[in-house]
């Protein structure tokens, strides 16, 4: 489903060149829930943006269901939710989803039904006609999650989906992700909240300074090292430092 090969991305700042993603390779199968974890500045967001086609790789390539990332065909297959999602202030929740549906050229009748369903699923049924500028952070994230699903994507790309949510919100989100997983969705998300990752992921990779330093199924990793995922994470990072 998602194949990343030798992905490298550098950013230029004044006199420095920083390698944010360093020769990264990953393979995510259909129906998997994959978690990319790492400390701040590890390159998680950059990686997700590269898959979404918002950034262009310096080296390597990314394919989504055989389509190159960044192409219109690939974008049709993904549902993207970025960190701290923002929407146009002048729109209501329903209008945001209608706008995105137009971008996918989804038929209006089909879209209207889907929008109702999605808003109900993310818990925003009563906020349908509220302008987004009045939304709380949690509501923003729920709406973004709805937006990511409007096109029935083959791959869900979520950048820190649980960041900043209160415990109730986190619980809702985890349940939504698990529900999608049981329906066969492929989900690739980044996070630094390890307990959540442990709960829902089939496989995780720890990213540090643009490189994967550890990868595997969470249960297997925990079992083999006899540590919690968090301890394992800290130890791996410190080891690399």
């Amino acid at each position, binding site marked *: 489903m998602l194949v990343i090969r030798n992905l490298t991305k550098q950013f230029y700042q004044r006199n420095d060149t920083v390698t944010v993603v360093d020769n990264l390779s990953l393979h995510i199968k259909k129906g998997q829930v994959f978690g990319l974890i790492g400390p701040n500045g590890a390159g998680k967001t950059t990686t997700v943006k590269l898959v979404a086609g*918002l950034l262009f790789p310096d080296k390597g390539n990314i394919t989504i269901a055989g389509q190159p990332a960044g192409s*219109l065909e690939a*974008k*049709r297959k993904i549902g993207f939710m970025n960190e701290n999602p*923002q*929407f*146009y202030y*002048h729109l209501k929740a329903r209008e945001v989803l209608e706008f995105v549906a137009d*971008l996918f*050229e989804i038929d209006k009748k089909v879209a209207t039904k889907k929008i109702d369903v999605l808003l109900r699923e993310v818990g925003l049924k009563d906020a349908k006609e509220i302008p987004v500028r009045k939304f709380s952070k949690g509501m923003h994230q729920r709406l973004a999650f709805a937006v990511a699903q409007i096109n029935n994507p083959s791959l869900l790309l979520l950048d820190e989906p649980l960041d900043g949510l209160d415990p109730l919100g986190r619980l809702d989100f985890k349940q939504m992700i698990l529900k999608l997983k049981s329906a066969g969705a492929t989900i690739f998300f980044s996070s630094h909240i390890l307990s959540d990752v442990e709960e829902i992921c089939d496989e995780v990779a720890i990213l540090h300074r643009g490189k994967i330093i550890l990868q595997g199924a969470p249960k297997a990793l925990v079992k083999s090292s006899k540590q919690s995922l968090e301890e394992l994470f800290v130890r791996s990072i410190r080891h690399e430092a």
Partner: protein
Amino acid sequence: MRPKVLWAITLNTFRETLRDKLLYSLVGFAVLVIAASLLAGSVSLGQDARVIQDFSLTAMLVFLLIITYFIGTQLVFKEVERKTIYLVLSKPVSRETFYLGKFLGLCLTILVAGLIMATMFVAVLAIKTHQVPVAAYFAVGAVILEAWLLTAVSLLFSSFTSPLSSAIYTFGVTLIGHGSATIWLLSQKASPVVRGILEGVYYVFPNLEKFNLRNDVVFNLAPDITQVVWILLYFVGYTAFLLILGMSAFRKDEF
């Protein structure tokens, strides 16, 4: 480019700009100036028609241009700053469609603002002088075309520099564009090297005097059909050129 997607972005941009309080102040001021031209006309020793026409058309141009300078240069900047650009570019929308949609959305806003001002202008003129010269309508149309062309300029600048610098550069282009006749005259008298440079400037910078039909309204000189055709062709050609430049620069932008 898919028309439905383009239209969705155009409409969204249009509705977004309608929310900008600056827009309302500007349109409000323009309408006020046009109404005030009635007063100015009354102390002009009988030159009411002249004063109303000249003041209103110049007010229209100035305020539409301010909309261009301040809203046009922020169109893309705001999207990046507010991170709403991720919402759009992660969807199957080409960079070109996004760029063009922003442009067309603001053009639509300018059209609406222009029509409001024009309505006020025609009403005031009709009430005071009981006649509206045909030339006035052509002048209004040309003002709107000029604002659209400069929107493309401001959008181009804003794709590689800050909004404030873009506004200043676009203003500079406006001044040069209106001074093109002077530049041409200067070039004819200059040495060959300087002449080449000045003639180059004349052709490269937009010649905005083409869209200046305002001075003829006072004498009720409507443009003839040939003139109108050339003006429209120039507008299409030059604006398309600017948009294509802008789109190719924008294609490489990362967010």
